[in-house]
């Protein structure tokens, strides 16, 4: 049977990926350039008996997302910069209460209202550190419509598996460009659903990690009566200020991610084997970077590209290795220096680390990258 292929926008591919993953709940608030995700799901979700609700603001949307997730829903929310700033408190709530859900941030220029229709990559550090308090984050950065489709499925899988919010960081270019997307057949891509408790309701503790770092999550309305709070809590879900319990819980919630890096991290390595200059690029900027690598190769420059699809947790180990191999790592980003800070931190001065920043609402073009590479070599 012929595969189902469709021409679609990145935002639409995101909505389609969510549906494939089993998303049955969306809550959001309209904002450019993310609105198409909501529009598509407002049409598609009721068709499958799912729920779509447009909330009164972005905080309310994340609140509804968490409430729905506790009833067993696989929930998605999409937004852009100003909305993402509003969501930060409840993103932290989803971290500490360990609620699986997926939030898409289609990045635009900023701060504040900035450039609503212009692309940006300026929320990359916010994605990790935007909410207060120590926590782990999983942040995915796809770069094509096909990849947005598949990475949205992966985002749901990671959210369910690790019982936490997962963020997808798009940018306006990826979100609005149209490409061919091959839609997966049922069963073709793996779908992971959260682990449900195997113990009786009387024995259930929502944060009991004795059998693994990710405790099973029961569903409201299924006979399990449990308490959920944003306060530091003990295994039974009730607030505690006991130092050793708070410490253990805080650390477990970070360790559940950091001890599973091989499962969570994903990168593309393009012509890296002999590369002397490595472009560290992601999202739409990586498309210019790939073009630049090809052009540089034609001129005999040993260029390659390292492209994280999981940006957070940051690929420390691999970037450290690359910093030993390369003379220089060049980071093109539509911001004034965000992920380059991580590259510098990890490279520890072993190679030159250079940045190309652009925040004028225009994409970084291959010529700019080629010029920078020639300058640093």
């Amino acid at each position, binding site marked *: 049977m012929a595969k189902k292929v469709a021409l679609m926008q990145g935002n639409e591919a995101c909505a389609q990926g969510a549906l494939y993953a089993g998303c049955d709940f969306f809550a959001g608030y309209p904002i450019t350039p993310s609105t198409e995700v909501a529009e598509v799901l407002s049409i598609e979700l009721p068709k499958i008996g799912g729920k779509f609700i447009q909330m009164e603001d972005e905080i309310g949307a994340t609140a509804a997302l968490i409430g729905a997730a506790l009833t067993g829903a696989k929930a998605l929310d999409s937004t852009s910069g100003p909305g993402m700033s509003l969501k930060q408190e409840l993103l932290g709530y989803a971290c500490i209460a360990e609620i699986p859900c997926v939030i898409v941030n289609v990045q635009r220029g900023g701060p504040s209202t900035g450039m609503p229709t212009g692309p940006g990559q300026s929320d990359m550090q916010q994605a990790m550190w935007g909410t207060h308090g120590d926590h782990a984050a999983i942040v995915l950065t796809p770069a094509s419509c096909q990849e947005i489709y598949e990475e949205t499925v992966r985002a749901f899988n990671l959210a369910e598996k690790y019982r936490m919010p997962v963020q997808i960081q798009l940018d306006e270019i990826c979100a609005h460009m149209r490409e061919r997307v091959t839609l997966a057949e049922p069963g073709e891509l793996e779908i992971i659903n959260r682990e449900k408790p195997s113990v009786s309701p009387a024995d259930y503790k929502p944060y009991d990690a004795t059998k693994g770092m990710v405790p099973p999550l029961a569903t409201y309305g299924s006979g399990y*009566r449990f308490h959920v709070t944003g306060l530091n809590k003990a295994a039974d879900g009730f607030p505690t200020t006991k130092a050793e319990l708070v410490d253990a819980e805080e650390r477990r919630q970070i360790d559940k991610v950091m001890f599973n890096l091989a499962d969570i991290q994903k990168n593309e390595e393009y012509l890296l084997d002999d590369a002397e200059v490595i472009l560290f690029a992601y999202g739409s900027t990586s498309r210019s970077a790939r073009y630049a690598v090809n052009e540089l190769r034609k001129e005999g420059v040993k260029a390659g590209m390292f492209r994280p699809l999981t940006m957070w947790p940051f690929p420390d180990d691999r970037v450290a290795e690359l910093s030993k191999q390369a003379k220089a790592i060049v980071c093109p980003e539509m911001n004034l220096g965000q992920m380059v800070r991580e590259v510098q931190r990890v490279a520890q001065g072993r190679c030159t680390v250079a940045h190309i920043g652009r925040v004028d609402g225009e994409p970084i073009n291959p010529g700019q990258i080629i010029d920078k590479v020639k300058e640093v070599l």
Partner: protein
Amino acid sequence: MAYDYEKSIRPGKLPHIWCPGCGHGIIMKGLIRAMDTCNLDRNNTAVVSGIGCASRLPGYLDACTLHTAHGRAAAFATGVKMAKPEMTVLVVGGDGDGTAIGGNHFIHACRRNIDMTYIIMNNSIYGMTGGQFSPCTPTGALASTTVYGNPDPTFDIAKLAIGAGATFVARGTAYHAAQIDKLIAEGIQHKGLAVIEILDDCPTTYGRRNKFRSVIDMMKRLKDIAVPVAAAAKMTPEQLEGKVLTGVLHKEERPEYTEQYAEVIKRAQGV
């Protein structure tokens, strides 16, 4: 025989955190009795709150309980109800939580007329943070951030709820304890968004500052200012000066939100 509250309380969770004389406990007992009156299945009842002294209530109840972030309870609860309309959803919280930081979610829950019962425990103050004024603090009253007298006008929560579209609005007081469960039960049985405001006291952060010598004085005030709606109908505006109406203040029938969305699903599916 004494009423058995224990069966609805989570084993081992008492004593509660509330101060002696705090009205929140009276309201919790009323809520427990109302849940009983309505025969609520606690497995299918979500009790959702924000942050504040009042919002600590769900932790004591043996149900599906969700203690959220300051002001956001109505929005979390909307997610629960929307995703699982067969659940009974109760929202509880303070005046500050519901009408200041949570005001936006509050009015939109009222507007949607989503089938939930929102119990606001109005002690006219931010109790938990030590007595700063709230949108429900009387003008002129003393609070830790209004030591020269509160310059802010005061919200009338019931009027706010009616204006925003709530289809059942009632008011009681912590003094009139026997009425609380009746109002809440009627709210639970009502289809749509029900707001039950219970005027409450905070002896610790409001009473002391505002020259109430004891909890009894605060309770006496609640007794004195409350006028049942039926009695008020026979009173002159002069007689009603400084009084607040209690009982069921508003009741109407309007399409409920999750039922409306069920229609959306039917239309989308072409049935």
